[in-house]
């Protein structure tokens, strides 16, 4: 990896800028993108996901909830943003200009980057803090794992280290990150072996959820919802990777092997560990499972893996920020990196608020992402029949077919807002308490459907009638 945005004229840097890609720059076929997808999916957050699911349901229901939830959401994410991003080779938020307007898409990008990607980066930092605290406790019997202050300090150290790596050597981090993925796969499989060495399948299958609920159907729906939201959380990141694929099938089916299958396996291993050990915190599992020496080694590696994931997540977010304007493109990379990490630092100051509330955290992500995914699917596949005008994506608002009203498509924003309200009406994001109707349909999927339907209706009734948005005039493809 190299700092983006400073080599606009070279082919090598095109994948890191918002230029549309040419064929030779599409470096991933089905096999390679699947490999990348698997390595992204089997990261430490998959264990957090499994731990969270184990709060509500036992092993068999958890397997069903994970496969169904991830299956639905990764199918949707594979459709949009992956398919349009791969077809046109454009940076994801550049492609979203056809949905939200040339200026509106930049606002969407800033919100997604600053809130969603920064929050994920912070979550990884906090998990780094927990892992280091558990290592210190095992080695020096310090009792740091229960201290929010100590975990915040370790998380801030991780943020500082991520900034140093972003500034000084993202290329090296990329290479080291390549080692992290196979080791994480080995750790996942090793955990599975160790779990079944100490616990039989019938014991795991018979284990009660960590937070048993009286209404088992509602608990199951909460578990499914967690996984729908977990899969949708890939939305801000995966589109920019899919644009590097060389065929539409590579951009679509690779998600079935990575985001779906690999995430499901890792989360299921997380469920088994949580049920066997009685904790939803992955950093607590390793020492009881592997013993003192191996447990400390695995925890140290998890801390390291989190750091490389933080750098990758931050790098992806900063690369998107570069596309905001040519002014931003000229800002020095270390300064941009520091600015991106400011909200990360703020979140890390309250480690337990995120780490102990993973379901709520996912809920906040899904409130924004589910309606956006619905709007993009309807806009691209239904309203535009999979045709975009590449040139208009790059024209200023007054010249572009995607100028809408001063660069903003208010209909798309209204659709996202109504989708978000639908989510909140079904599942309260602060208390994480479901309301009437949730037990039948969940929250993310209705939010996605409502947003998509409102966008379709608003476009037919308002946008098309006003002759905005270029819905009858897609020129390329």
């Amino acid at each position, binding site marked *: 990896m190299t700092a983006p945005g400073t080599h*606009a004229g070279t082919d090598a840097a095109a994948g890191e800028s918002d230029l549309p890609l040419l064929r030779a720059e599409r470096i991933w076929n089905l096999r390679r993108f699947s490999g990348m997808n698997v390595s992204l999916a089997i990261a430490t957050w998959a264990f957090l996901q499994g731990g969270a699911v184990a709060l509500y349901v036992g092993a068999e229901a958890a397997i069903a909830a994970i496969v169904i939830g991830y299956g639905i959401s990764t199918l949707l994410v594979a459709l949009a943003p992956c398919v349009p991003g791969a077809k046109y080779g454009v940076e994801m938020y550049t492609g979203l200009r056809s949905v939200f307007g040339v200026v509106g898409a930049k606002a969407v990008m800033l919100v997604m980057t600053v809130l969603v990607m920064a929050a994920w980066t912070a979550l990884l930092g906090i998990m780094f803090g927990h892992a280091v605290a558990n290592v210190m406790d095992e080695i020096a019997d310090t009792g740091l794992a229960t201290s929010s202050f100590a975990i915040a300090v370790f998380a801030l150290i991780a943020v500082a280290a991520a900034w140093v790596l972003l500034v000084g050597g993202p290329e090296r981090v990329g290479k080291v990150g390549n080692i992290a993925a196979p080791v994480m796969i080995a750790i996942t499989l090793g955990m599975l072996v160790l779990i079944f060495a100490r616990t039989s399948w019938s014991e795991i299958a018979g284990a009660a959820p960590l937070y048993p609920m009286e209404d088992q159907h509602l608990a199951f729906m909460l578990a499914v919802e967690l996984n729908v939201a977990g899969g949708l959380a890939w939305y801000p990141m995966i589109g920019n990777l899919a644009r590097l694929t060389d065929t539409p099938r590579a951009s679509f089916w690779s998600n079935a092997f990575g985001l779906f299958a690999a995430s499901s396996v890792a989360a299921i291993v997380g469920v088994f560990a949580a049920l066997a050990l009685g904790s939803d915190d992955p950093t607590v599992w390793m020492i009881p499972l592997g013993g003192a020496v191996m447990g400390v080694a695995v925890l140290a590696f998890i801390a390291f893996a989190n750091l490389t994931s933080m750098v990758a997540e931050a790098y992806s977010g900063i690369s998107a920020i570069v596309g905001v304007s040519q002014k931003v493109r000229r800002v020095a990379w270390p300064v941009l990196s520091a600015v991106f990490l400011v909200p990360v630092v703020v979140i890390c100051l309250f480690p337990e608020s995120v780490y102990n509330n993973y379901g709520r955290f996912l809920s906040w992500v899904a409130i924004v992402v589910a309606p956006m995914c619905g709007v993009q699917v309807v806009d691209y596949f239904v309203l535009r029949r999979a045709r975009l005008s590449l040139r208009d994506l790059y024209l200023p608002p007054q010249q572009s077919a995607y100028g809408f009203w001063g660069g903003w498509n208010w209909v798309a924003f209204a659709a996202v807002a109504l989708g978000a309200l639908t989510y909140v009406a079904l599942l309260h994001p602060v208390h994480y308490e479901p309301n009437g109707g949730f037990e039948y349909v969940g929250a993310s999927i209705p939010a996605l459907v409502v947003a998509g339907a409102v966008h379709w209706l608003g476009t037919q009734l308002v946008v098309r009638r006003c002759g905005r948005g270029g819905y009858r005039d897609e020129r390329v493809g």
Partner: protein
Amino acid sequence: MPDPTFDEELERRLRLLEDPASPEQVLDDLPARDVALAALGLAVLAVVLLIWGYPR
């Protein structure tokens, strides 16, 4: 202020991608059959898992 290097490179790429005679064109559409197959596979898997794993 416009960035001439970026703008020139963007224009070069857009011309290549818009030219029907150029080998540098956008990718084909994903066949609808692929989406239908994925959706069907997922539906079958979901039914089987609900029968097996739904909490009783």
